[in-house]
């Protein structure tokens, strides 16, 4: 079995397609690191000018209104005065903290600011969230902003109690680990799983061209399949090599961050007016859980490809099934639909790994049951079934791996 492993290993890593995939991923990583990451402009940034502009305008209004007769004034003006009297001290405090360079104080006050601003803005026509959420006709901008503001509130709260050194990069999530976190919550899991699909897509089919050499190998078919699976898994892990290089470079540019940084988790059960809507998880835990879920996806994808290979014997079918598994969610996903459907029971709902761990997906679907553990169970179960079927077929007397 070891000699067959060496054989498959060599074939896997000298396959032109696989080499091209690693190369393209490395190129994309470097491109991201040098071109895209520097232009990252978060909507929630530490913007001294913005705070100052808002503070000064409101302060001017307050000063203007000071001492005036408020009896015949429009109620919205009174409302404005009340609100501004609450917020402006916070903003002033933030500005002072930035001037002093006291990040802890800034974090503490900013957390309050977010919490308060959100409570007056959500579903309130008088105020509006940061306009950047409304670009490209985002129909759900309000909800996205609501999520973001409360998330930031919890983040800053955690920063204010942190025992590690704070920095602007940490606030804006530019550090290497935080960038990785952001990517895991967006497009990275899908890219990686697609890569895994492409890597393993022909791992069975490639043998069809050399039957008389391979048919006689004294090793059982099911063992061959297991070796192929293992080699493909190794290949998937190698995908992280260019990623790690990229993270390292970002670390050199903007700091590495550390594993104790906060990674807020949406908690639907909390009352947002009282406790906010998030619970805390460390970045380390987030990354760990993400990797576990991601790796489980790798196992599922590879085994599904293997099973399809031995049933359908066509790379196109492998590709179609793989794509269906990855993008199948789009067929039924839309906001809030999870309230009515049991989306948590479909394995395909767990493809956005980072969003599952941070429970953003739960917010998107309005569903409380999407969960890391449930996802893990579903995916492992799926993998188990697939592996079982595969070995069952391979053990069948009439089955031939290479026809």
């Amino acid at each position, binding site marked *: 079995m070891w000699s067959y492993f060496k054989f498959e290993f060599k074939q896997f890593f000298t396959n032109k397609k696989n080499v091209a995939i690693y190369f393209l991923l490395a190129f994309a990583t470097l491109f991201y690191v040098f071109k895209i990451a520097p232009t990252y402009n978060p909507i929630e940034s530490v913007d001294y000018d913005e705070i100052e502009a808002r503070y000064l305008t409101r302060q001017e209004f307050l000063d203007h209104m000071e001492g005036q007769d408020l009896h015949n004034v429009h109620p919205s003006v009174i409302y404005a005065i009340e609100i501004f009297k609450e917020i402006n001290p916070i903003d002033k405090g933030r500005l002072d903290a930035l001037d002093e360079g006291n990040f802890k104080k800034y974090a503490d006050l900013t957390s309050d600011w977010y919490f308060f601003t959100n409570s007056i803005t959500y579903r309130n026509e008088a105020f509006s969230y940061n306009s950047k959420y409304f670009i490209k006709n985002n129909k759900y901008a309000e909800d996205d902003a609501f999520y973001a503001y409360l998330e930031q509130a919890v983040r800053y709260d955690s920063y204010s109690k942190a025992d590690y050194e704070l920095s602007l990069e940490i606030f804006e999530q530019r550090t290497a680990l935080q960038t990785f976190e952001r990517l895991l919550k967006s497009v990275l899991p899908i890219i990686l799983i697609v890569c895994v699909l492409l890597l393993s897509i022909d791992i069975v089919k490639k043998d069809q061209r050399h*039957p008389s050499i391979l*048919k*006689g*190998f*004294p090793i059982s078919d099911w063992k061959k399949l297991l070796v192929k699976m293992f080699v493909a898994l190794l290949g998937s892990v190698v995908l992280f090599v260019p990623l790690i290089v990229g993270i390292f470079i970002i670390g050199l540019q903007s700091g590495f961050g550390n594993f104790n940084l906060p990674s807020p988790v949406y908690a639907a059960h909390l009352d947002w007016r009282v406790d906010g809507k998030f619970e805390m998880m460390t970045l380390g835990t987030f990354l760990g859980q993400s990797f576990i879920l991601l790796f489980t996806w790798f196992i599922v994808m590879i085994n599904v490809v293997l099973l399809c290979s031995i049933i359908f014997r066509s790379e196109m079918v492998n590709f179609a099934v793989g794509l269906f598994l990855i993008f199948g969610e789009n067929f039924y996903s839309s906001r809030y639909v999870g309230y009515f459907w049991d989306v948590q029971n479909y394995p395909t709902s767990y493809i956005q790994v980072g969003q599952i761990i941070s429970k953003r997906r739960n917010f998107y679907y309005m569903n409380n049951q999407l969960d890391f553990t449930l996802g893990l169970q579903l995916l492992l179960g799926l993998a188990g079934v697939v592996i079982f079927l595969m070995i069952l077929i391979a*053990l069948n*007397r009439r089955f031939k791996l290479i026809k």
Partner: protein
Amino acid sequence: MLEVQNITVQFGENKVLNDISMTFEQGEMIGLVAPNGTGKSTLMNVLMNYVKPTKGKVVFKEGLSYSNKSNEVKIHQFVSMMPDQSDLYNHLSGREHLKMFATMWQSDLKLIDETIEALNMGHYVNKKTGTYSLGMRQRLCFAMQIVTNTEIMMMDEVMNGLDPNNVEIISKILVKKKAEGKIIIIASHLLDNLEKYADRIFLFNKGKLVNTNQVIEGFSQAHIKTIRVKNMEDHTKKQLRELFPNLELQTLTNGMSLIHLPSSEASLLSSFTSFLVERNVVDFAFGKVTLNDLYSMYYHEDSIGDSQNNHFNYED
């Protein structure tokens, strides 16, 4: 060591292998001779379990047979079939192919260099097989099988495309392997070569294996029992029948005339020789019926569609 028990392979109406039973012993070289499409490759495929027989089974040492997949793997440890040259990996070198096979069958890696030397492959074995000629590819496939060092080796048309020198080299290696106690089963059309080295030679007829000794008695023994004359003229044949009535004369379709002698008595031989020389017949040879002759005799009759019992075209 290798026992074929009542193997029948039927494709639709056609019985390609019809109730074949045979035993092969260690240290034997078996030749399979038959026209194309009569079942040579099918028999080998059955022995490798690439084709499942309709009836019957194959039994190996210690009673092992292809009853389940793990037995199949066990059997493939000591039974191998020569790979087809069209299946080689064009971007890998010959040596890499040999290493692949040696590692897979866990044989001694020294065997690789020994085989390369024995086959004179040293000057090209490190190049990519995509650059090889057909003969080089064929030799590589043979080398790959040798390197597996399995106890039973099956080769389908191993000498394809090889020049006479290479044929000799390979034959020598096969003889050596035979001496080591291996069972070697060769399907071939190089009848002279097969005749020289094989212990038993089988012809196929209607899905059955027919030992050449059954076709002509004492075929595999080296006796001077036959005189072979090429293109004997009719009047010479007439005179022969008059002068030597106790000799059987047989004319084959390839123009060869066979005169079967009842014994190898020296006087008989000398009188017959003078007879031929007097009539200016110079192209004749003593020996036995060759496999070539046998082949024409055996199969030409069948293709004409004559009576099944009479295989010989006697002239009387």
